[in-house]
C-alpha cells in the first residue's frame, strides 16, 4: 500500500467556531495506481491531501504514506513523495532551471545530477529550451508542467497533484493529461484531486468521491457509473401513435426502468444498454414499427455524483467549509 489512512479528521478554528473540513476519511491507494479525489470546492479534497503530504497535521487519525508513518516520521514521508500544489511552486522572477536544481538539492540530490535530471524532465514534459527562462515568461500550461518537474525531480514513489489542470485552456489540459498518464510509466503512484468529472474519468483507475469532508462513493469510473441505474436509451419513432406498442416491448425487457414516453420518443434506463439494443431493435422491427433514431447515453460521473449526494457537482454549496479558511489558522 502506498497510502493507508484511517479516520483522518481535520478541524479548523474559524471565527464562527470550529469547522470540520475532513470528517473521518479512510483510504487505501495501492502501488502504481492513479487515484482521483473528486468533489466540489470545499469538500475537503485539498485538506486531506495536505495532511497526507505532511503540510498540516491531522486533528485525529493515522496514516502511512510511502511506507512511513505520517505522525512519527514526516521527514521519511517527505522523502518519498512529490507534491504539486495548486498554487504553483516557483517564484515568477526566478530562472526555471535554478528553481528545479535548488529544489532537488533540498532533497539531497547533488547539483550536477539535479541539473542533468532536470533537463531530461524538461525534455520529457515538453519544455524544450526553457531551462534558462524566467518562470514568469512561461505560459500557464508550461508553468504547470514546470511544477510537475519540481515535484518529480527527486524521483518520488508517490506523486500528489492538487487540481493539476485548474485554470488551463482545453488544449493545455489535454496535453497535461497525456503527461500525467505518462507518469505511470515511470512506475509512480499518483493521487490527484479534481473537481472536473471528465478529468477523473480520463485519468483515474479509481475515484473517491468526497463531499462535506466524507468519502461518499469509491470505485473505478465504470464501476461508479454502473451504480447509476444504467444507460439512458432514447428511441425516436417515425409515428408517435405507435409509442404505446414500443413501450410495451420495452417494459418486457429485463431490468428496464424509468420507461417514459414524450410524443414520438420512448426513453428508459437499463444496465449495459449497448448489449440489449440489437434484440430490442429486432423486436420493434418485427412489429413493423419504423424508428427515426436511437441514442444511448452512458451515465456520466455527474450522474454518479447526483445519485450519491443528491445534487450536481456544479452546484456551489454555500454551507461547505471553505478550504481557504485554513490559510488563516493552519
Amino acid at each position, binding site marked *: 500500500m502506498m497510502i493507508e489512512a484511517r479516520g483522518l479528521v481535520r478541524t479548523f478554528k474559524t471565527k464562527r467556531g470550529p469547522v470540520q473540513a475532513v470528517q473521518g476519511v479512510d483510504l487505501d491507494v495501492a502501488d502504481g495506481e492513479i487515484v482521483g479525489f473528486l468533489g466540489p470546492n470545499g469538500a475537503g479534497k485539498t485538506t486531506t491531501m495536505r495532511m497526507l503530504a505532511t503540510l498540516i497535521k491531522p486533528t485525529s487519525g493515522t496514516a502511512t504514506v510511502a511506507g512511513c508513518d505520517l505522525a512519527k516520521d514526516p521527514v521519511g514521508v517527505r522523502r518519498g513523495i512529490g507534491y504539486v*500544489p495548486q498554487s*504553483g511552486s516557483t517564484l515568477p522572477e526566478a530562472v526555471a532551471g535554478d528553481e528545479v536544481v535548488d*529544489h532537488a538539492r533540498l532533497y539531497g540530490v547533488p547539483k550536477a545530477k539535479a541539473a542533468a535530471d532536470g533537463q531530461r524532465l524538461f525534455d520529457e514534459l515538453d519544455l524544450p529550451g526553457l531551462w534558462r527562462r524566467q518562470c514568469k515568461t512561461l505560459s500557464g500550461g508550461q508553468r504547470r508542467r514546470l511544477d510537475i518537474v519540481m515535484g518529480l525531480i527527486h524521483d518520488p514513489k508517490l506523486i500528489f497533484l492538487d487540481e493539476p489542470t485548474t485554470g488551463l485552456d482545453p488544449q493545455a489540459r489535454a496535453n497535461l493529461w497525456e503527461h500525467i498518464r505518462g507518469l505511470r510509466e515511470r512506475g509512480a503512484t499518483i493521487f490527484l484531486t479534481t473537481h472536473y468529472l471528465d478529468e477523473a474519468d480520463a485519468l483515474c483507475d479509481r475515484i473517491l468521491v468526497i463531499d462535506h469532508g466524507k468519502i461518499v462513493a469509491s470505485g473505478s469510473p465504470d464501476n461508479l457509473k454502473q451504480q447509476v441505474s444504467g444507460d439512458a436509451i432514447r428511441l425516436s419513432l417515425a409515428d408517435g401513435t405507435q409509442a404505446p406498442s414500443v413501450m410495451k416491448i420495452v417494459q418486457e425487457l429485463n431490468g428496464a426502468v424509468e420507461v417514459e414516453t414524450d410524443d414520438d420518443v420512448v426513453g428508459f434506463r437499463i444496465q449495459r444498454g449497448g448489449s440489449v439494443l440489437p434484440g430490442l431493435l429486432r423486436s420493434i422491427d418485427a412489429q413493423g414499427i419504423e424508428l427515426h433514431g436511437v441514442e444511448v447515453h452512458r451515465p456520466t460521473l455527474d450522474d454518479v455524483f447526483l445519485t450519491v449526494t443528491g445534487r450536481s457537482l456544479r452546484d456551489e454549496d454555500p454551507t461547505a467549509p471553505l478550504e481557504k479558511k485554513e490559510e488563516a489558522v*493552519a
Partner: protein
Amino acid sequence: MTVLRETWIVFHRAMRLSLRNPMWSILMLSQPLMYLFLFGPLLKPITAQISQGTTTNPYQVFIPGLIVQLGMFGAMFVGFGLIAEYRAGVIEADRVTPASRIALMAGRVLRDVVVLVVQSILLLVAAIPLGLRAPWGGVLLSLVIVALLGATFASLSYSVALITKSEDALAPLLNGIAMPLLLLSGILLPMQIGPTWLQRLSDISPLKHVVNGVRALFRGDIGSSSSLWGLFWVVLLTVVGLAVGARTFRKESA
C-alpha cells in the same frame, strides 16, 4: 551537518534572486544616504552639545545611529518578500522537502544579513569624505552588531509574515512597531538632550542602548560600559528573534 548544507542552499538561492534584481537593495540604501546628506548637516551647530564635547563633527554621532537604523529597517520589511514567495507557492514547495525548517529560515536571514553588512560598509565609505573617523576595531564590532540586529529583525519579520500571510496586515503592523522604536532609539538625536521623562521612557527600548553602544565603539571606547551594554542587548535581541523565528517556521510547517 545537513542543516548547514541546507541553509547554504537556501541562502544561495535567495542571494541569487537578490543579485538578479539589485534595484531593491540599492533603493534600501538610498534612505540612509538621504539622511546622511540631507539631515546630517543640520546637526552641525549642536554637535558639541549632543556629543558632550567629545567631537565637533556631526557624523561621528550620526553615522553610528544610521547604521543601526539600516540594520533595523533594512531587515524589518523582508517579510514582504516572504509573502510574495508564499503566494507563488515556494514556501509550500520548500516545506514538502525533507529540509530542516530552521534551514528554510536561516538561509533567507543570512542573505538579508549579507545585504545589510554590504550596505553598511557602503554607507561608512560614503561618510569618510564628510569627516567620519573611527578605529578599525570599533567599526568591525559595529558591523557585527548591525549583522546581529539584521538577523533579529529579519527573523521577526519572517515570523509575522508567515503568521499573517498578508501584506495588508504586515504593513501597518511593522510601521506601528518601527515608529516608536525609531523615535525612542536616539538614532536621529541622542536621547541625552531630551527631558528626563523621555530619557526614562527610551531606557525601555533596547535599541537605544545598542545605538549608544555603537557610538561608544566609534569613539574607540571598546571596553566602556556603553558598548558592553549595547553588545549585551543586541545578543539578547538576537537570541529572542531567532528563537521566535525558528519556532514559527517549525510550527507553521506542521
